[in-house]
């Protein structure tokens, strides 16, 4: 599977060519598209090779060959990552709401939020593991990509957890070490299997990893588990004194829980007492019989050489396990700002010699050093998705530890990262509501991005168009809202669905388009002799007031209804009202007057004198035009219609005069 990693237009002499970076598995290729052309489509690119044009006709746009559609980062989307995006969106919004409150985001809110994010991240890791194991053997590349994602997200969880401990948690004295131990325990490889193996072995202490397990548990502060394993040693029964002594030491180790009661001095005192006892027993030679126990005792005393002993180092999978273990036994009341932490970290890193400094280690070190900018820079550069840095920085930003660091473009770091994140989720066709909402939290550039993005969301159905419209309204994107309605209206118009087109222009109160649609209805009436979409016209209601032409259309239809119902007087009144109110375009006057003809000819009187005068007034205005066109009609071939017109005009005059006389007689007071 080939993925498009990047695309950019050429420059200089090769301005018309495109340069593509493709990724196949772990290989990257850069291709210059000499004969290839690319076209943007939605959020991807369509690529085709022009060299397959037919030879005969170089100018023809005939094309025979493959058309390839490329999309950004399509492999990163699976059900686990989509869950991640959706769940974290919910918490992101809550965080922003809390931060926008009167007092800003309080520390406990931030910690809770951070824990939610971490929990979501952990769920994502578990889900990815499940998907990876469920992928069948054929899709090996898929499985690899899931495994890779799984590792990446685990690393993100590790870093996030450390940052939460160091920067967000508000810890009383002595609790940092507990949190760090918790951190190590949570992220280290599970030892249950090893423990089970050791327990079920006939001679536990002969197991090659027995002592490794004991050291590991001690360094992780899982003292009770360490004691349990020690008790499995056969010597524990044979020469109990040695093991009892160690067991007692371990049992008495003061755990720095956040009791809240003990002050720093008290905690320090109790710890120093305990350590004193350890040193006494070590010097007394209590553990000479069992060298491993002696080493363990030295570790408990916090001896540097012991802590860097080969077997201790081997029992740790990661350098930070060793580091936290060292801190536990040398300075348990350490604060995150103490230099001890960094010094120990660097020492342990050196011991593990993690091959030239893996990026993850650099990131963890930056976190321990308190260098947040470096941390964020490294994360952005090495983690291939923007989710991590965007959300982490947002939390940092609201906690205030992130000083306003102005980039060259002048907007805050967290906004920049949210923009990048939102841009990255744009690559999926489904996630546009979430992308738009993230953009709304970027005060400087967000709106610009929103307006450009929303115009490119494909409107595949009416329901989707309505949702896009609501989003435009929500973010005050008035022009874009109008554009959406216009696009839908034009689309409907082109497929001949005037009713739908009209409904879209009513939705957006687009008077101009509604007017032109009304004219189209009229034209169709004149050619077909009857109205289309009667149901719509009959029930326009007050929506017709949007445009004069629309109002005219509605009223004219009402006239037809009244006429059809036999309500001739009302119909006649309406007709005159229409003309008098000036909403009838001139070209329809003839039609209206022609409609008046049968009413004038009716036995019972419909029009009174005023109305007749009004009709006459309009007819007179028409007639000079009619006579004018007579002069020009000499060259006209279509003289028959002119004659017809003339006939109509004279008929109308006749009818009007007759009606006038009738009306005058009726109105005259009886003598």
């Amino acid at each position, binding site marked *: 599977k080939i993925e498009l990693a990047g695309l950019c237009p050429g420059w200089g002499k090769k301005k018309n060519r495109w340069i593509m970076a493709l990724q196949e598995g772990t290989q990257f290729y850069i291709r210059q598209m000499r004969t290839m052309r690319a076209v943007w489509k939605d959020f991807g690119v369509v690529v085709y090779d022009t060299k397959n044009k037919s030879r005969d006709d170089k100018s023809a746009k005939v094309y025979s060959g493959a058309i390839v559609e490329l999309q950004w980062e399509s492999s990163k989307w699976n059900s686990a990552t989509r869950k991640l995006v*959706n769940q974290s969106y919910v918490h992101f919004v809550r965080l922003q709401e809390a931060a926008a409150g009167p007092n800003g985001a309080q520390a406990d809110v931030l910690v809770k939020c951070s824990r939610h994010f971490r929990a979501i991240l952990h769920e994502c890791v578990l889900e990815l593991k499940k998907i990876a194991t469920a992928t069948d053997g054929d899709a090996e590349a898929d499985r690899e990509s899931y495994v890779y994602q799984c590792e990446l997200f685990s690393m993100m969880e590790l870093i996030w957890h450390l940052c939460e401990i160091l920067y967000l948690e508000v810890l009383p004295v002595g609790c940092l070490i507990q949190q760090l131990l918790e951190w190590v325990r949570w992220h280290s490889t599970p030892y249950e299997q090893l423990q089970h193996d050791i327990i079920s072995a006939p001679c536990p202490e002969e197991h090659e990893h027995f002592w490794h397990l004991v050291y590991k548990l001690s360094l992780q502060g899982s003292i009770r588990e360490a004691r349990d394993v020690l008790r499995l040693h056969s010597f524990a029964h044979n020469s109990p004194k040695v093991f009892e002594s160690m067991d007692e030491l371990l049992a008495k180790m003061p755990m720095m829980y956040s009791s809240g009661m003990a002050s720093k001095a008290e905690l320090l005192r109790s710890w120093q007492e305990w350590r004193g006892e350890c040193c006494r027993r070590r010097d007394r030679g209590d553990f000479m019989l069992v060298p491993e126990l002696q080493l363990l005792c030295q570790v408990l005393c916090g001896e540097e050489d012991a802590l860097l002993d080969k077997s201790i180092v081997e029992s740790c999978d990661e350098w930070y396990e060793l580091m936290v273990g060292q801190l536990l036994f040398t300075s348990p009341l350490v604060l995150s700002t103490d230099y001890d932490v960094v010094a120990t970290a660097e020492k342990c890193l050196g011991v593990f010699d993690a091959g030239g400094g893996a990026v993850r280690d650099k990131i963890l070190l930056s976190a321990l050093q308190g260098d947040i900018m470096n941390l964020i820079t490294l994360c952005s550069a090495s983690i291939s998705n923007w989710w991590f840095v965007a959300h982490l920085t947002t939390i940092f930003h609201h906690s205030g530890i992130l000083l306003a660091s102005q980039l060259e473009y002048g907007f805050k770091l967290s906004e920049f990262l949210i923009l990048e994140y939102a841009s990255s989720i744009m690559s999926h066709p489904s996630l546009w509501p979430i992308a738009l*909402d993230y953009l709304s939290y970027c005060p400087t550039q967000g709106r610009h991005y929103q307006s450009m993005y929303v115009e490119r969301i494909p409107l595949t159905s009416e329901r989707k168009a309505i949702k896009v419209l609501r989003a435009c309204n929500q973010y005050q994107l008035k022009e874009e809202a109008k554009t959406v309605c216009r696009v839908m209206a034009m689309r409907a118009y082109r497929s001949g669905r005037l009713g*739908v087109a009209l*409904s879209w222009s009513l939705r957006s109160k687009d008077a101009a388009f509604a007017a032109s649609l009304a004219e189209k209805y009229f034209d169709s009436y004149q050619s077909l002799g009857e109205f289309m979409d009667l149901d719509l016209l009959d029930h326009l209601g007050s929506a017709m007031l949007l445009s004069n032409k629309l109002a005219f259309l509605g009223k004219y239809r009402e006239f037809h209804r009244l006429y059809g119902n036999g309500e001739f007087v009302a119909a006649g009144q309406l007709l005159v009202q229409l003309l008098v109110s000036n909403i009838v375009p001139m070209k329809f006057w003839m039609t209206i007057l022609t409609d008046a003809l049968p009413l004038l000819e009716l036995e019972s009187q419909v029009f009174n004198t005023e109305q007749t005068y009004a009709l006459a007034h309009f007819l007179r205005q028409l007639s000079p035009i009619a006579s004018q066109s007579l002069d020009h009609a000499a060259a006209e071939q279509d003289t028959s219609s002119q004659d017809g017109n003339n006939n109509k005009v004279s008929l109308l005059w006749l009818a009007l005069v007759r009606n006038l006389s009738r009306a005058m007689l009726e109105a005259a007071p009886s003598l």
Partner: protein
Amino acid sequence: MAEWVVKYVGHKVSKVRWRPQLAGSIDPSDIFASGSWDDVVNRVCIWRFPATAKAADEEGLNEPELVCAQTGPADIMDLVFLNRDHLACALSDGSVAVFSYKEAAGTLSHVRDWKKVHGQKDLPSPCTSLGVLAGSANVVSGGEDGRLNILRLDDQRPYATIATADSSTITGLDCSIPSEVLASSSNGMLKVWDLRKPPSKPARILAIESGDYTSINGVSRHPNQPNLVVLGCCDGSLCFWDLRQEKMPASLCHAHTLDVWEAKFHRSYPDQLFTCCQDGSLWHWDASSVEGSGQRSSWLSGAIACGKVDIVNHLPHNTLSVNSCDIESRHLVCGTDGEAIFVIMDLNLN
């Protein structure tokens, strides 16, 4: 506040429907179907809630358990159960597809397709709503082309078509009364079609003329009083109409702030009404404490205006649109644009 469970499903949910209960059984249905939309690959999924004991053990949570799914490229615009074993889907490529659910095997298989029954030949338009004709397994489909089709399971082509049923999109259908079809449209009109007569014109047209442009998103009939319908509108208002009175709706209340996508009465407790909205809210309207004035249902009286109806929002913190909701007995299930399915459990119904 009732307890609820959420499951993030990885696709935007357009419709959820409970499978019909066994006739005469009091056990609530434990299977529901969901459809997705606006994705590269869309799916129809069958879920079980409450999950089987085995699944609940594995996951440790009481989430809906996925039983089976079918995929396809087109959006699922509407979903109905024809009977306990057959499920019909309205698709955005103008087709209607029928699937058969086999409970024993736990599979969903494709049975019948009516391709491109909506739109023109080269330009299909989405089929937006489906209804099941009462007393049969025939499907009525309405689409963006304003056409109504009557489809029979054993026939490849539509049995009957009303090509110019509406000048705009048909948004909702209700066929609970035999040989009568109610179709709501996006032009604010509700048309009543009588299938016994040759259907060239609707038997009746009712229109909301409230001033501003309104579009009706869905229609639902009261289970005990077939002349009472509730309409959900695009401006958030809810319209109660007594079909015997054509001129005006009985009441029009401005309830939500954005489009009401679905409004439906509880089948067994019609004093309970459920509405779901674009702004992410899911409201449960309880009119049981209103005394119906004689013949008139509590919904038609001015109870809502007087504030006598209790309203509870079951998803107060949700911001993304709730597209669909359904309730069979005590559990209310809904699907949102936040790619989540919520099940609100053990509602208090009188």
